[in-house]
């Protein structure tokens, strides 16, 4: 049981990293990117293909994969999010839903619909701490997730670009008027989001069976964390993501029924939305 909880923390940190990408986009443009999972999936498959099938060194493959996903994020911004800038959130959401589906079909063409098993990024015997086993891959994943959370926090709080991003998130129109590079910043957030999706996908892929649909489970958990954590509060969303991973671990241990996690999540979210609708919606929703 304790082992399940420990594993849950590391899986949860990866979920949190994935959700962080959605938070970054939501904060910048009040949009939810439904192609987030597929954006990461493409990155993970690029990494798996070039590192395993073509034997490229792992660091180069990782950088390349992240670059591909970041580019996909920027493309989503240019093709859908920006042209629909003055449309409702729902319209953009449908557009990104279309992008996600399109990426899925393309991935089926390029990478095939088969399953694949990905080795952990660091091999080696698990480390034993007080009777609990922690694999090296888990440690790496946890460290990367925490480092990236800290990095994004630093970017937003302590750099000029971060201040721009905050200003744009608050009032895009005024930010444009005083001459902030709104479009460039928007592309930056979508690119950053795509990169985060790729990192999360690469980290989770050794822990699951990889198929082109493998990130849809992460999208469901990411969206749930987003709703439960309040959309643009990165740390609350991250906390919710860890909680979801723990819940999932316990449900799998106790019941082992497929899809029960999704049912519990859906039920929990309906209950939470009905009980405390305003507490959860981001404060500036009303203006969007």
């Amino acid at each position, binding site marked *: 049981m304790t082992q399940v909880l420990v594993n849950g923390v590391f899986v949860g940190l990866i979920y949190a990293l994935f959700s962080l990408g959605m938070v970054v986009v939501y904060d910048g443009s009040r949009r*939810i990117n*439904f192609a987030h999972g597929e954006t990461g999936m493409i990155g993970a498959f690029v990494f798996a293909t070039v590192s395993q099938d073509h034997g490229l060194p792992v660091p180069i493959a990782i950088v390349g994969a992240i670059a591909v996903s970041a580019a996909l994020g920027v493309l989503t911004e240019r*093709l*859908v999010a920006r*042209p*629909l800038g003055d*449309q*409702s*959130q*729902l*319209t953009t*959401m*449908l*557009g990104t*839903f*279309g*992008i996600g*589906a*399109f990426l*899925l*079909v*393309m991935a*089926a063409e390029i990478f095939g619909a088969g399953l694949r098993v990905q080795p952990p990024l660091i091999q080696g015997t698990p480390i034993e701490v007080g009777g609990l086993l922690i694999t090296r891959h888990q440690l790496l994943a946890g460290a990367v997730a925490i480092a990236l959370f800290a990095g994004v926090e630093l970017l937003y709080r302590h750099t000029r670009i971060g201040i721009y991003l905050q200003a744009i998130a608050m009032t895009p129109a005024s930010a444009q008027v005083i001459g902030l590079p709104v479009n460039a910043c928007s592309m930056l957030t979508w690119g950053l989001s795509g990169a985060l999706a790729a990192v999360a996908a690469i980290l989770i892929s050794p822990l699951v069976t990889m198929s082109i649909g493998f990130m*849809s489970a992460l999208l*469901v958990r990411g*969206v*749930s964390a*987003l*709703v439960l954590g309040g959309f643009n509060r990165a740390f609350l969303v991250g906390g919710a993501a860890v909680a979801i991973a723990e819940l999932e671990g316990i449900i799998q241990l106790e019941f082992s*029924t*497929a*899809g*029960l996690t*999704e*049912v519990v*999540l*859906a039920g929990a*979210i*309906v209950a939470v*939305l*009905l009980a405390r*609708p305003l507490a*959860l*919606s981001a404060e500036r*929703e009303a203006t969007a």
Partner: protein
Amino acid sequence: MTALARSAVTTSAPRAARTGAASAGWSLLFAGLAVVPLLTGELTTYRVGLVLIQGTAAIGLHVLVNWSRQVSLGHAALVAVPAFIAASLSGESDLPLAVVLPLATAAGAALGALVGLPALRVRAMQVALVTLLAGVAVDRFALALPWFRRASLSQVPSVQLGPWPLFTNRALYPVLLVVFGAAVMFTRQLDQSKVARALKLLGSSDQLAQAAGVPTGRYAMFAYAYAGALAGAAGAMHAYWVTRVGTASFGLAASLLLLTIVVVGGPGSIAGPLLATVLFVSRDVPLWLPALSLMAVIVVAPEGINGLGRALRRRVENRRHR
């Protein structure tokens, strides 16, 4: 406040004449559909039947998406559960169509209302997220339950109409046409009612509808239930028509196809989504086509086929006035 309002303003032909012409058009369409099984073979009839089934579900989703601007991202789940229920009730429990069809429709409506329940308290965006989760939950959990699994293993028995069993597609076709016709007529009636005006107001602006005294939450929930009911009817017809229910027919691709159909159809008349249904269902289309169409139509031509129709009509009318 965009397409719908504008079309109402630019209407120049007398309303009564226009409704008359539309009714004549629909009658003609149904007359044409009625003779399909007489003139074509089993295979074509089967295809047309699939179009009618998808069309029924699409009309419901059209009311939800294009009238009230709510979104159901997992709509195939609302077709799937009633389809499995219909397969089980008609197979294992041996119930007749006259019982199964209303039950499946009611099940769809109930499921739709359940998914739309958060609409009472929160905005469309959050409800849409719930529909995504509900869709996955149904796909992964509900359809894997033993009761549903058994339903997918056996063949759905053919419909018995009084003493006559409807063995072939051509024999079952009239039943399908009646269900589709009922969906069209009922929705066209609804379009003339206070409910439709309230839903469209809600679709144009949440705040406006609230200011006008529309209980927006309940109306949004009604739209979900209505879409669910038609999805349920479509699900039951799917079970009888395809004679087998499997999870493969109701996954993400099916939800995407339904959404694409109503987005490509565009706000306005139900003719748009039905034309889109013909476009995407009457033959096998590669999977990338709906995904790409959804994206392209939203960005380039958000008013869809209905918008094209309106532009064409404006042109014709302007020329006539000159």
